């Protein structure tokens, strides 16, 4: 097994789309399946998966891009730390995300100390090598990134690297899925659950969604065959009016998840309410740093106040993140807002729905 090419095999794909057509023919209404992961969104558009589905089976994108759901407030805080002379370290995709007034790229151009890193360990190393600097790492990401940040904090505490701090913007996916269903603005008939996040959380974490809301959930990987199999399983449940959690990605995801990673997160973070762009405050959806690690919590040690505004004229990222509209429905999409000149976060990040649409979907008929 090479673990990639087998999952892009044409005959298998054809067989699966045949099966999907068969089960879909039993369902006579529009079905909306939501993925909540940028990697799923990208694979769906890159491989033209929508072409393989009957027209009444719709795939919609939810809040699956961590950079995109990060609210203006967070960017404003990060910019403030940069302005006040902190050395801000971040993954590259945060650089161009616009806050209320500025972005990290703009702060850097004005002389702010901002450095793009490729891992949390690199940020920790910078702190260790430059003890005179107050180094802040921008902890943005879902359950997948949080364990690596937790590890860096545990190491920092052990090695007494006290100038290494985190600005935590970590978020949890299942509470956002719950919030979408509770709000009810978008009709969702099934969730294609994210393979990477589930590798950490385990597939059990979605049980309450199936139980409480009667919405089927299938954990799926990121290859075309994975995604089609996930869609097929969801449609089978819908056809039989069932709602349960199934795991298509069992070569990676276990029901209980990655216990080691979960215990690292547990050690360092506590669950708190968190603000999501476009969705407001969602209960129990964010990770803040525990008291035991407060000397690495930049908010606890050096609190800053920011006044943030949420209005970007005409930008509809909030609705796109909730799956209410698709990127081409936004009047700014394409000409005014594009990857060279992004106005909203969904166009900045390569995991953002707008950016993915811009790159991979074309109005040209082929």
């Amino acid at each position, binding site marked *: 097994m090479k673990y990639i090419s087998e999952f892009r095999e044409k005959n298998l794909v054809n067989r699966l789309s045949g099966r999907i057509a068969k089960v879909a023919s039993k369902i006579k209404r529009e079905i909306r399946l939501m993925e909540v992961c940028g990697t799923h969104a990208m694979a769906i558009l*890159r491989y033209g998966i929508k072409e393989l589905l009957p027209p009444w089976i719709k795939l919609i994108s939810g809040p699956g891009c961590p950079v995109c759901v990060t609210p203006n407030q967070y960017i404003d805080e990060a910019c403030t730390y940069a302005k006040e002379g902190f050395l801000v370290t971040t993954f590259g995709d945060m650089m161009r995300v616009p806050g209320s007034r500025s972005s990290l790229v*703009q702060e850097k151009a004005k002389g702010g100390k901002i450095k793009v890193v490729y891992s949390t360990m690199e940020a920790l190393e910078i702190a260790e090598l430059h003890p005179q600097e107050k180094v802040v790492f921008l902890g943005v990401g879902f359950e997948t990134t949080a364990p690596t940040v937790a590890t860096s904090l545990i190491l920092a505490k052990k090695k007494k690297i006290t100038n290494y701090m985190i600005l935590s913007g970590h978020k949890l996916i299942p509470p956002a899925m719950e919030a979408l269903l509770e709000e009810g603005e978008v009709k969702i008939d099934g969730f294609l659950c994210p393979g990477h996040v589930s590798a950490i959380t385990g597939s059990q974490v979605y049980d309450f969604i199936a139980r409480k809301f009667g919405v089927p959930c299938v954990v799926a990987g990121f290859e075309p065959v994975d995604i089609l199999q996930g869609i097929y399983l969801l449609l089978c449940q819908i056809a039989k009016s069932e709602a349960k959690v199934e795991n298509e990605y069992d070569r990676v995801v276990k029901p209980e998840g990655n216990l080691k990673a979960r215990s690292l997160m547990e050690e360092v973070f506590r669950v708190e309410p968190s603000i999501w762009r476009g969705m407001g405050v969602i209960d129990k959806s964010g990770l803040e740093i525990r008291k035991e690690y407060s000397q690495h919590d930049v908010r606890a040690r050096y609190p800053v106040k920011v006044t943030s505004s949420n209005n970007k004229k005409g930008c509809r990222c909030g609705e796109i993140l909730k799956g209410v509209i698709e990127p081409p429905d936004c009047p700014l999409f394409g000409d005014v807002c594009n990857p*060279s000149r992004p106005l909203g976060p969904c166009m900045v990040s*390569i995991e953002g729905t707008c950016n993915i649409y811009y790159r991979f979907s*074309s109005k040209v*008929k082929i």
Partner: protein
Amino acid sequence: MKDVIRLAHGNGGKLSWQLIKEIFLPILSNPHLAPLRDSAIVEVEGKKIAFTTDSYVVKPIFFPGGDIGKLAISGTVNDLTVMGAKPLFISCGLIIEEGFPIPTLKRVITSLQETAKNVGVTVVTGDTKVVEKGSADEIFINTSGIGIVLPEANLDPERIKVGDHILINGSIGEHAIAVLSQRQELGFEVPAKSDCAPLFDLVNEIRSFLTCIKFMRDATRGGVAGVLNEIVQGEDFGIELWEDEIPVREETFAVCELLGLDPLYLANEGKILIFVEKERSLDLLSHLHHHPLGKDTRIIGEVVSEPRGKVYLETTIGTKRILDLLVEDQLPRIC
């Protein structure tokens, strides 16, 4: 922030084209420049001469499979080669940063000379400038090259017709991945080697096909997808590529998956795209297979009538997707 040069202006994508169309072409306007080919073709006393120039700023200057010296010859030789020209003379301009070790300079120039010797070109003139520390990064090289267009060559994008086949002489993306693998911050090792090589010998091998070859381009900056997009722009044909047929080595594929890169957009330094009459493509293919630089040649696509001016990919799973020009470059200073 708008009216300044950004890294993306140099990546051969949309912004590079904007510079060419809005600044260079209008100001420098002349008939030799206007076709915007890899080399200009000028006629001197009845002889067709190909003339080209290129600058090399690769970082790091040594990478698996090559170095900035080898690259500076290969790149310029290839720009002449794809015009059907036999490369003859090369100029070499160096911009060196203060503090650059002389033994390293010697290593670079030795590699440059070895490559030149192997392909049969001579470095006949040069220049050296040294700038203060920090004003350049180690060493930048500019080379210009002159070649004589082979009499049988009639390479012109105007000759491309619907049905023509497109060949590439081996697996793609290796130069970009090899250079990338040397950038420390990535923190993992990749067993990749750059494909950096001068290709004149390969083209010389298929000289007898030059009458039925319509057009050639080396797939450097912007990769296969970028270069093919430049070719179809504004034309009344499109290009269909077959993902199944495009050779990508296992390790390139793995790194791309890991980093979210698309091999179709990665730079090559030893790959040539050949447009040929469909009827002769299989013949040409087997000829190319005889040469060490062509043994992995594949027919990767064909010229189609619709959609005009677009390149699209028939994916491994049988769906279709447009391959657009690259907007933002993730990998600056790859060549």
